[in-house]
């Protein structure tokens, strides 16, 4: 009895350590899910200028944002994700907490959705923040191309 209890305990500890180690390993091994800017940028005073790096580091996400409502309205990366060193006023998070972040602007909508579908607060799964959730083409390719030549 005692032996099997010991084995059980050892198995549990092993499981905990194994799982913990695996978790830490995964986090360290896939850095593209985090912003490495905090480690690499030599100008921390520009940490909130995410787009400059991310146009190269994650072009799809950047372009999706740029063309989305949030991009047109200049709701910038740091508003929801915080800055890469995690020392700003917004916590650095890959997937921001809907209650704390999304509700700042979308509380009425969240309340409507909860009333309709229950409290599954995963806004992003139906309304992908970075993809163009706009219906119609009001926001697409609307940078005017009219140019004039001025008299000398």
């Amino acid at each position, binding site marked *: 009895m005692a032996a099997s209890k010991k084995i059980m305990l050892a198995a549990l500890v092993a*499981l*905990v350590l194994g*799982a*913990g180690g*695996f*978790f830490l390993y*995964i*986090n360290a091994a*896939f850095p593209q*899910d985090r912003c490495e800017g905090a480690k690499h940028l030599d100008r*921390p*005073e*520009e*940490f*909130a*200028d995410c787009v400059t790096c991310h146009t190269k580091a994650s072009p799809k996400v950047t372009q999706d944002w740029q063309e989305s*409502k949030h991009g*047109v*309205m*200049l*709701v*910038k990366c*740091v*508003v929801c994700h*915080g*800055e890469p060193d995690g*020392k*700003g*006023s*917004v*916590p650095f998070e890959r997937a921001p*907490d809907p209650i*704390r972040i999304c*509700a*700042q*602007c*979308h*509380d*009425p*909508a969240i309340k409507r959705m909860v009333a309709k579908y229950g409290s599954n607060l995963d806004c*992003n*799964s*139906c309304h*992908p923040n970075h993809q163009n959730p*706009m*219906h*119609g*083409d*009001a*926001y697409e390719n*609307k*940078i*005017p191309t*009219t*140019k*004039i030549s*001025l*008299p000398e």
Partner: protein
Amino acid sequence: MTLSRRDFIKGSAAALALSAIGGPCFAAAKEEADKWVKGVCRYCGTGCGVLVGVNKDGRAVSIKGDPNNHNQGLLCLKGAMLIPVIYSTDRITEPMIRKDGKKSELTKVSWDVALDFAAKRFKDAVAEYGPDSIAYYGSGQALTEESYLANKIWKAGFRTNNVDGNPRLCMASAVGGYMTTFGKDEPMGTYNDIDNATCFFIIGSNTSEAHPVLFRRIARRKQSSPDVKIIVVDPRRTNTSRIADLHVFFKPGTDLALLNGMAHIIFKEELDDDRFIKRYLQFQDNEGNARSLEEYKEFVAQYTPEKVHEITGIDPDMVVKVARMFAESPATLSLWCMGINQRSRGVWANNLIHNLHLITGQIGRPGASPLSLTGQPNACGGVRDTGSLAHLLPAGRVVANEKHRNEIEDYWGVPRGTIQPKMGHHTVALFENMASGNVKAVFIHCTNPAHTLPHLNKYTKGLETAFVAQTECFHDAETLKYADVVFPAAFWCETEGVYGCTERRYSLIEQAVAPAGQSRPAVEILMEFAKRAGVDPKLMPYKNSADIWEEWRKLSQGTPYNFYGMTRERLKKESGIKWPCPSEDHPGTDLRYVRGEDPLVPVNHETKMFFYGRPDGKPIVYLRPYQPPFEPADDEYPFVLTTGRVIDHWHTATMTGQVPELRKAYPSAFVEINPDDAKKLNINNGDPVVLETRRDKMTFPARVTATCMPGLVFCPFFDKKLLVNRLFHDAVDAASKEPEYKICATKVYKQG
């Protein structure tokens, strides 16, 4: 949305690990709001309603948009990051004085010492040099109660009309425009017009960065009805133009010619509203002589598309196109801001926009209105309406009018003749008089003139010379360098008061948290200071700001600014009400001057519209000729320099600079330059570029982008390390006395 394999593995691993170890180190303590306190955003003139989340310990922990205010729950990035500003380590929490003149250090003292120190200097100045040797310099960010109180203390208590404020630098030309054309200040439309307009004429406004939540509403309108047309007229192609159908570049400062040219096309192509013109309008030239419609038509006929092209550089076909879009749309809404107001002909430019709306009858219908956007959260409600400027008295009265003075004297319970008939110094003249020693002491409230005045090198001399008492919340403010006394004021939701935004909407900011350190509400500071400086305490029989509101509310009764129905209790319950609102059961007014909408128009009035602001009920269409800016580009100084905002910072960044995310989005000012110009001058992104004007020269990092048209460079003005206002001249509008911050001539070259 599907999970990627990596997400799945990572998620499973994390879940497993967390379930195993209980996750104490990952579940960061989240501070939950215990109650939500209603207020208004501290920043721009949009005036978005906010709810401040306060936890059990009385600390503000979160913020969200007020769903019942006009912003419908939305905030921009600055508003969403407002909470950290309250708890910034940069807050001034104790009174400070400079004991031994400007060169000594600011030292912390008690309230009594600071108040007595300031009061004595003001009292001495009045005794020795008369009341006009002191002044109040206020702000469009001060609460309505604060501005009303200061106006009363200075004009009736100290008996000087030297009461002015930063709205002079921002809204004075819009006031001048509404006053001259319609007889009374403040727009006739509201933000609701955005939802009904079919054409937007946005001129001299970067709405997207200066009023983001309004921009979102315009974009939503465009999205729901793609036929809606948006015209942006601006020498910079800003983010606002992303949703525009037409972007019109023009040579900076030449828009008066475009506006007259549009009027010409409107008549030539019979797009005018003849019925409206004949029934309602009158015409006048610059000298105030009455003119006829025919004379007006002849006047604008000079501005043919070719002539407009010659002056502005706009393609003649484009002039016709814009005029047609404006006039043919069922409902056109004009929006403008500092690009029109901060000009040496700002009032004229305002008049010309009103002209277009009047001759086409694009007014008084949902969506058809000339709507001037305000820069500050309480310039309209707090300063324009309470008359806290050198030439005004509360509710549209002027100091030059004896009847107006007597009305106010009677209401305030002071003998007739107390209020001086002579106008006080407007802002630029005030700082000039401080430098020359005519004004000995100034009380600066809630603003940062050492950063925002034009031609700074000249006007900071005034601050160096005069005794400066200042209320301020942040050490970061440039003006602190010149302050002799600093009173720590309660910030934003640390006190209670009313803000009135662009659309005549008054909303109450309720107190959510206790003031930081020893700071006190500004109404207390003003009253304590005034009592010690010898002002009769009977003038200030108030326990708190609610009492001041009661007095001001009752004073508005019977005036065109009537908001008698907005009791404090009602403002606590509702998220903002638009005046006119004459009784407690009145819902507020959307369409001013319209029968059946505006309670001040009699229900049985003979015509649908009644412009009661003017004695004859007829707005004036002005014959305003084109005039070039004060300092256009020339051979010696070939570029035009303009200033403005970036979305991340507000005004002098004393507040936004406290938020790490906002500070790091734009750590310093820069100069925006067109790629064609940059190529000619061999300038690359990030190069140090010298801007040299007739006043000063400064070096900025270059930002090469197509935003500015060729020949134009832009610098934001938020950075106190690079005070771009040092480069600007101090020419002011002849009527409104508002300086021309938008245009000056400069040399541009690479440093080295």
